[in-house]
């Protein structure tokens, strides 16, 4: 077994609890950017503390870091390729009518499983209509 350096785990644990309290308290300030920082900024800090100190990545050989970095890179590639089409509902030569309609319609009240309208909303929202393209392409969805 490889001997590790063991940091003061108790101190790290209590710091993590303080950071958890900060993320919960953030939204009470009522300012959007404060909530974003306390929620997601603090999450990154907490995750990094766990990864470095509890998972001991700080003392691990570089190859393990490369393996993890590659998987993060693949994730970034996925994000770069897909996110622009999902986050926006219109571009230079396309519009996502169904997604726009879903956004305009809002989410509505709590649904029961028998609510057919709510079942249809999500899948339709993912279809795209491309009016400028020739016939033979996927037909535009029914809003």
């Amino acid at each position, binding site marked *: 077994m490889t001997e590790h350096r063991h940091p003061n785990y108790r101190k790290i644990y209590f710091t993590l609890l303080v950071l958890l309290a900060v993320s919960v308290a953030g939204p009470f300030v009522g300012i959007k950017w404060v909530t974003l920082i306390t929620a997601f900024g603090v999450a990154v800090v907490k995750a990094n503390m766990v990864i470095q100190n509890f*998972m001991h990545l700080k003392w691990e050989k570089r190859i393990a870091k490369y393996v*993890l970095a590659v998987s993060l890179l*693949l994730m970034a590639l996925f994000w770069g390729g897909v*996110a622009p089409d999902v986050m926006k509902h219109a571009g230079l030569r396309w519009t996502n009518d169904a997604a726009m309609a879903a*956004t305009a319609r*809002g*989410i509505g009240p709590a649904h029961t499983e028998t609510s057919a309208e709510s079942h249809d909303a999500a899948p339709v*929202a993912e279809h795209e209509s491309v009016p400028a393209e020739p016939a033979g392409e996927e037909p535009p969805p029914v809003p």
Partner: protein
Amino acid sequence: MSKPLATTRSATGIPTGRLAVWWVLASEVVIFGGLLASYLMHRVGHPEWAEAAAATNTWIGAFNTFVLLTSSFTAVLAHQAAERGDGKKAARFLTYTIGGAATFIGVKSFEWATEIGHGFTITSNGFWSFYYTAAGLHALHVIAGAIIMGFVARDAARNRELHRVELIGIYWHFVDVVWIFLFPLLYIAK
């Protein structure tokens, strides 16, 4: 008992078992990363999901974050004990971690039962689909981790295979890290 060759050699300088855990986690990063990235991009594209997100209970999410952070703390203390050759102590700390896992799942069951009772199901809309898929996949990892930890703790109590305490610990901390990101995504971003 003779061991397979792969468990005794180390081409990278990292013991083979630990390297295997890193490989597992690399694939987990892509699984959870892809799921969470998909959720995030849809959430940005659908501001109306905020209305559904407002129905999640931040306090329950925070309590479960506390439970997982604590279980990670006991898991790393188990690792420390194992490295000092104290298998009994390592097993005891692993048992505490299993207790954390059971608490987490118990709280989650209560939470889901309440939400489903209010009519928020996996088919209600896009937000709830992501909510149940991401939290459900995470909960399955918690259950799997707790079961494996039971076997590792049983061996550790007899001072056997103590290096496995570290391996299950690394996996457990990863499950904790996933929740650290799920918490703000599903419970705080209203």
